[in-house]
């Protein structure tokens, strides 16, 4: 199987980039999983879709807006009414989801090449992300395992808080390099590492 090539290209430079005080409060990495799909339910079929996601990935996604769920291999994030972004370490996610989502339930679209996932971790990640997004990242309003869809200027972003100090941000692949550079710029003040 041909390996998928990262869109970050020469902008991806592994290493530590501490700030003037020698700190690295942020860790940046590309975390695009093998499989990414968008799954949408027809009106009234939302629960059936969540069940199908559960069967394909083992995830139990809540019904609330901005709900998210994750396990060792997969995660799902509600990105709109009746609409979920599902990701998995398995390459066959699309096929598995297609098998589970009946036509009368909804549709599944493969986005494994179309979205890039960038992981932002560290104790300064709320501070850094607040530079880019008009989003309240405080834990009380944006708790772990929730998400939202927003934008940074022209860059549409779907953000999943997968831990207290960890976010996964999905952007269009074509804009990933620009966004990556933007993240590095924003992280310069706190210092960062690239893994």
């Amino acid at each position, binding site marked *: *199987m*041909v*390996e*998928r*090539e*990262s*869109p970050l*290209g*020469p902008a991806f430079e592994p290493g530590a980039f501490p*700030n*003037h005080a020698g700190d690295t409060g942020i860790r940046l990495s590309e975390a695009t999983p093998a499989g990414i799909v*968008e799954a*949408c339910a*027809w009106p009234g079929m939302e629960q059936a879709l969540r069940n199908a996601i559960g069967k394909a990935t083992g995830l139990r996604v809540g019904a609330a807006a901005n709900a998210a769920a994750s396990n060792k291999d997969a995660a799902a994030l509600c990105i709109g009414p009746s609409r979920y972004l599902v990701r998995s370490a398995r390459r066959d996610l699309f096929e598995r989801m297609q098998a589970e989502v009946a*036509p009368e339930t*909804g*549709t599944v*679209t*493969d*986005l*494994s*090449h*179309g*979205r890039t996932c960038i992981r932002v971790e560290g104790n300064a990640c709320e501070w850094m992300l*607040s*530079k880019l*997004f*008009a*989003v*309240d990242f*405080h834990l*009380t*309003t944006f708790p772990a395992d929730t998400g939202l869809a927003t934008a*940074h*200027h*022209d*860059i549409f972003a779907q953000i999943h808080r997968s831990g207290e100090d960890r976010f996964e941000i999905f952007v*269009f*692949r*074509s*804009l990933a*390099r*620009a*966004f990556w550079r*933007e993240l590095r*710029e*924003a992280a*310069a*003040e706190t*210092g960062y590492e690239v893994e």
Partner: protein
Amino acid sequence: MSPRRAAAGGTIDRSRPVGFTFDGVKMSGHEGDMLASALLANGVLLVGRSFKYHRPRGIFAAGADEPNALVTVLRDGIREPNIPATQIELHEGLRVESQNRFPSLDYDFGALAQLAGPLLSAGFYYKTFMGPVAGPLKGTRLWMFCERFIRRAAGLGRADHKPDPARYERMNAFCEVLVVGGGVAGLMAAEAAAKSGKRVILAEQEPRLGGMARWSGEEIGSKPAREWAEGLAARLARMDNVQVLSRTTVWGYYDGNTLAALERVGDHLPRRPGDMPRHRHWTIRAAKVILATGSIERPIVFPGNDRPGIMLAGAAMRYAAEYGVLPGEKIAIFTNNDSAYRAATVLKAAGASIAAIIDVRKEISTAAQALAGEAGVVPLLGHAVVGTSGKRLQRVILRRFDPQTGLVSGDSRPISADFLAVSGGWSPAIHLASQAGGKPRWDDFLQAFLPPVPQQDWSGAGALTGGMTTAAALKTGRSAGRAAAGQKPSRARLPQTEEPGLDPSPAPVLEIRAGGKAFVDFQHDVTADDVRLAHREGFVSVEHLKRYTTLGMATDQGRTSNVPGLAILAEARGISIPEAGTTRFRPPYSPVPIGALAAERHRHFKPDRLTPMHDWHLEHGARMMEAGLWHRPQIYGQAGETVEQAYVREAKAVREAVGIVDVSTLGKIAVKGPDAAEFLDRVYTNIFSTLKVGRARYGLMLREDGIALDDGTTWRLGEHDFLMTTTTANAGKVMQHLEYYLDLVWPELRVHLTSVTDQWAGAAVAGPRSRDVLEACISGTGIDDETLPFMGIVHGEIDGAPVMVCRLSFSGELAYEVYCGAGHGIHVWEALMEAGGPFGIAPYGMEALGALRIEKGHVTGAEIDGRTTARDLYLDWMLSKKKPFIGSALMDREGLIDKGRIRLVGIVSLDDRPLGGGAHIVEDSTSEGLGTSIGHITAFCYSPQLERYIGLALVKGGKARHGTRARVSDPLRDRFGPVEIVSHHFFDPEGKRMHG
């Protein structure tokens, strides 16, 4: 005498000297100094020249209200003008220059403007440069003559044209309670809210919190007020739910409790690390806001009031108490209220002698009398300053004054003094409160405007609300903080204060009319007579007055001049100040650098959007061009080639052998669901429900008004699964259009849309050898004419990567669009290049792509320009008569089927010179080449096949003009010449090559 550093006192660190230069002269201050205090400590009284008359001016205030002492900061090779010296923290190596002077601050040619003072009154420009053109130098002609000189002389500091190397950042913040102002009231409010567990942001424009507590000399809770404030500030800083932002000016209050603030992160550091922003712009969204913005002292207007050595009394007190600076040795005080008496005692304690306290009032409070005694003087009640003298203040002239009538009387009486501290009372700093909406309310007792009744979710505390004592600040601060946190008022005892019981009510005297130039607005050189002149000339509204005289404009926004100016206008009109009203306060409260507003956006308004093959293009010599956000190859130039030579070579390769072009940028939308075909029938002008699985069809969309919206092919990948392609430019617009219809017009249709533009990398392989190239590298499918007919789709693999191939053509040649997962884009592209090597494959860019499509007469966004219809473009064959579709109801309107509409044609340059996009086509041109336009050129190129310069155009009559001649008229580019109007199908009109 000059001002100097007092022997003791202040909160500066006298053990840490700080070197700086002013106009190239080396000076020294101390850690904790502001530039203004350091200049005074170095004996500098003359700091700047005024805007209009170039009058010598000194430091007048001690904060953001400073109108005079604007300087240019030189740092990192950049000049930043018009920064108040009162807001610049001293740091080692600070370099500043005075401004608006030539050749030097002491000897300024511009001061000659004072001779023309009587001419330069309010409205000078309007009166002088308007009117009929009656002579060689009248009215507008005179303006045109004088403009260059006036523009050169205008302004204060000179900005730089060099790029600013500093780093600016933006921050979005959310909180439950935002407290603006870190004085006593703000600190109390923040603590009360934070103790309730609320998320609090406390913003203070000064470097240190505490406000007047830092220099008032009072006591709070049996401690010096400064110590009390510092302790509370430290406790707040340690609380997890409190964010303290010092050096942060909240400058704008917008709807929805959204406030804008500027944090000066690194201006105070001698060396700012490269990763540290100079400024950070904050957008703060607060559930509740507490404004504790304090009050601003205002002056009294009197003749000679702008001389260096005259300062607000509160500022003089602050320089002495906080910075240990004596602004003069022999100090006179001129006041209409009690607060200046405190200044007298502080200045006296710092080592000055108080020459006199001149008070317009006939009676003063007991507390003020006691303070006068402490200062060692008997106040001269019922007196006013009517003049001053000395290049640097040497004397103040007094006369008796009746506060009831406003008249002076008696003989003049000079008093020797080298410094005059003035106080006209205090105005609550209502700027943000006013920005939040509502009309300020006049308070007779304070002779000041109070904030309006809140229109948004804010409350006030401290001096802003009219409580001018520290005890009031403690009380209102705590109440506001608890209320913002949803708590009931506390009955707990507040810290005790030790402060003089001064009368906060000033006499209603803001001007002494005694003849001579009396300045109201120092920054814009607006005098009291200018205000009266404006009134006589009919500018009776305060808003008109402001614009006619420029009173209250510029960097200080009239903080010291607004109320005196209003008082003079009101007196001239014979009305009260509240009847005259006040101007509406607007953001920003104080200047905000453009860099801070732009922040990182200066590059990322337009993020770079890259195709999967971007790096390959760069490595192979592509010259890139921007198409919207996308970066696309323009040409793959070879050494010595012009752009035209390059694209002609590339286009020839396509026509003669095979070429490959990156088409990943085409918009791609997955249209899925059982009603997908029905949906497409409704949005396209032609039918898609009959399209077979594994086939594609060219489609055209109209807007609701019948105008063409976009075109592209849509591929049926499954019974309920379509892949729609759009033009690169319209991908987002089409997606929104479709989502609108699905969500709002046809919610009953079971269709889902997903943008998959980025899922697929696309390469168009075009040319007579394109099939050979694909045959050499594809597996898992045949691509012969039977397996893959025109507009057919097959799936296979290229070098192990899954691909989807559709046979369609934009170039007019036998061509295939090869789609693969974007992450495999370069892999498949390189495999195609390798397979095409034996067939002479050449990558081609946008220019060749354009030339090929022009030769074929294919339309793009240049022709589908939001004004043309399907018929204009001869696409009426795509308008189905069997079904309705978006736009079908309105596409046959009279105006849209008019025979005089411009329609698509081809044009050929008859003088063998290039054409230009947008150039007009004219019929009967004049000798100058102009004429009546019959249309315009939409696209042009040199055609390798025709070996002529050709173009597409939209011309009245369209086909009816085929074979006729006209002229191109392009005066902007000086391009005129004959053209022939022909069919837009220049090349292979039957389409034999792409079907071959």
